[in-house]
């Protein structure tokens, strides 16, 4: 038996103890929310520390440039009045300030770091600073000037207007230089300008990465769909056994896999040998299957296929075979039944698999490096190079940030076109 709830003067519904019902509901919900929050707190902290923080750090590094303003503080200030396009070197005051700043930097052993930072922008500055370090620390500043001549004597590089232009351009605490660099541009005499054509590479790589990742994703769908379908329609014992085969790529080390691909795909490899043997290709026109884009696509498809098959399989398992029977009983041919009834229901699996494969392949760099030759490498290979080898972490961060934005934009587009709730892992 229900009783009519009490109401107060304002017409609000009251609960049994007289407080407004809304208020006590909120109180109850708040307690629930707090408890939920406490439950996910460990994960939340973990994600913040291991994921959000590094990404923020990366975003910061892609614009951070405090090394120069911090360590050449006076030089940077005085240099502001100098016009690099005047055709003249900065004034003696700049050189004197520079001598002073440099001496302190040398004592802190950061002058070589400034040198290598500026060397990213203009080759030669690295050794300029390194060599200057040995001399400048002996100078008696400000008594043994004038420093313009002293620096010029020390190394003719200091009499190069371009060196000073570089210092001035990169004197701010923050810079968009890394981002410009990432899109094949640079900070020139009059603001941003395109890099010389023989140095343009990143846009090409971004586009190539996207196109090849799409190709890999499509190939994974084409190859993975029938496999997942067979698996989903087999008795579960057989399916589990075959699933091991699908997961096999995960169990082999990268080295084993790479050698396997080489044995298979190289000019004198198994595939070519077989093709030549059965006379499909001539001995002197063997197929180039490795060290190019084909190699990357084959190898990456092989690695990433399980990421397509697994979500597809688990989605397909939930599609009851009676749908197909129903369609056929309604007069649909096998193909129509599949295409109109089964396939649409498996799209969430394709969506999930594609997102996984696409995002993973965009970030892969080891495999392309090993089997991609020159035309099959991705933007991530350059990012890895700048992190591991050139130590230009700012540029790596800018490239990474752009990649992140591109991925998020694609994700957004996917959501708009297909709908993100149309993604299912099982």
């Amino acid at each position: 038996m229900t009783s009519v709830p009490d109401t107060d003067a304002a017409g609000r519904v009251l609960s049994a103890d007289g407080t407004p019902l809304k208020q006590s509901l909120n109180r109850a919900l708040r307690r629930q929310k707090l408890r939920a929050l406490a439950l996910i707190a460990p994960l939340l902290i973990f994600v913040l520390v291991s994921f959000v923080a590094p990404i923020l750090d990366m975003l910061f590094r892609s614009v951070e440039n405090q090394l120069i303003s911090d360590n050449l503080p006076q030089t940077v200030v005085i240099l502001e009045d100098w016009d690099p396009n005047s055709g003249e070197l900065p004034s003696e005051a700049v050189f004197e300030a520079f001598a002073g700043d440099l001496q302190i930097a040398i004592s802190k052993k950061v002058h070589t770091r400034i040198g290598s930072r500026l060397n990213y922008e203009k080759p030669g500055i690295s050794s300029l600073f390194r060599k200057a370090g040995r001399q400048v620390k002996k100078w008696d500043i400000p008594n043994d000037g004038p420093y313009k001549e002293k620096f010029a004597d020390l190394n003719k590089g200091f009499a190069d207007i371009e060196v000073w232009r570089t210092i001035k351009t990169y004197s701010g605490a923050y810079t968009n230089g890394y981002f410009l660099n990432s899109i094949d541009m640079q900070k020139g005499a009059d603001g941003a300008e395109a890099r010389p054509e023989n140095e343009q590479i990143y846009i090409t790589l971004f586009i190539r990465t996207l196109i090849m990742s799409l190709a890999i994703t499509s190939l994974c769908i084409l190859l993975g769909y029938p496999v997942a379908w067979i698996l989903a329609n087999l008795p579960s014992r057989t399916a589990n056994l075959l699933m091991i085969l699908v997961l096999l790529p995960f169990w082999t080390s990268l080295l084993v896999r790479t050698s396997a691909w080489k044995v298979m795909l190289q000019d004198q490899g198994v595939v070519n040998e077989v093709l030549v043997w059965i006379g499909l290709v001539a001995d002197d026109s063997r197929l180039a299957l490795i060290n190019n884009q084909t190699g990357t696509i084959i190898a990456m498809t092989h690695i990433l296929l399980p990421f397509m098959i697994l979500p597809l399989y688990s989605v397909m398992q939930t599609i009851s075979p009676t749908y197909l029977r129903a369609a056929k009983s309604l007069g649909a041919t096998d193909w129509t039944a599949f295409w109109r009834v089964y396939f649409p229901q498996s799209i969430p699996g394709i969506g999930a698999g594609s997102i996984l494969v696409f995002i993973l392949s965009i970030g892969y760099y080891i495999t392309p490096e090993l089997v991609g030759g020159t035309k099959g490498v991705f933007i991530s290979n350059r990012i890895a190079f700048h992190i591991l080898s050139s130590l230009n972490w700012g540029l790596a961060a800018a490239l990474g940030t752009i990649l992140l934005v591109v991925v998020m934009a694609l994700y957004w587009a996917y959501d708009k076109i297909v709908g993100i709730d149309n993604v299912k892992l099982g």
Partner: protein
Amino acid sequence: MTFTRTLLATSALVAVGGTAFADGHMASDMTLVSWGGAYQNSQQKAYVEPYIAMNEGVTAVWDESSAEAVAKLRAMNEAGNITWDLVDVVAADAIRLCDEGLAMEINPDEDLADAPDGTKASVDFGDLIVSDCFIPQIVYSTTMGYRTDLVGDTAPTSVCAVFDTEAYPGKRSLEKRPINNMEWALICDGVAKDDVYSVLETAEGQERALAKLDTIKDDVIWWSAGADTPQLLADGEVVMGSTYNGRFFSLIEEQKQPVAMLWDAQVFDLDGWIIPAGLPADRLARVKDFVKFATDTQRLADQSKYISYGPARLSSAPLVGKHADLGIDMAPHMPTDPANATNTFLYNYEFWADYRDDIDAKFQAWLAK
């Protein structure tokens, strides 16, 4: 280390022991970083095992991270937690680490042992100390090798054969980076050896080198791991290719592949230790003790029993003996052997420290085209 043991040790070791006592407490664990494989193994045999035999209770673990040492050291430095004690790097990386303040500057005469005849370390190592932080160990070279059965009647004698696709058709493997390739390209384009770097300094010179490389671009398989070229040669995938001389040694002498190597225009390079900056006193004391031992004349000569790289000390050269397993004389396989070193090329560290990023960008752009 007990006193009796110290007494029993060689005179050189007494000096080492003396320093150790003077410095007080030494850590007993060391983390050494190297390249793995045969090279790391030679270091283990020649340096670490004898050192541990003389210093009971000391342990050394290896970390095979030399390829990423620069980046990892920078990351450790930023995190304020240096876990490595001694790092094996190529000279170019040593310069970079020194510039970044990530490696400790050393004083060769104080930190390294004198030669047996009393020559100071700074003299014995000489020019090979290319950076204030660098402790040289070996000289190796990057050079060209070819399949003896695939080059026809006239075997190549010059490095420029790599650009001669008429005489030597087929694929060739080169390292996927500008260093060495740009130099070879200029030399084979007619630039005198001494002018190579001044030409390469200019944009036109860089264009010229790339243009020369362009003539064989379609025939090149670009490698990024030292094991690639030996494998490609063994599989008959390439007729010739570049790699480190030690790799050729094992391919030819140990695996008996139909491969021969050229010493012509071999590019010398150096590999050695750096000590990370900012080690705590006890670990620093231990690692200095080890380094002094591991880079003395005998130890460097010993390493060549296991791998065909030349010791970085002048005084070690006469002590180079036979290969530990194969029993063959190692001297003729050293890149520094006079017979091999008739036409060599010394890699210019200073130049590449300055131009590496710039030329690399152009090189990669050229590759991607």
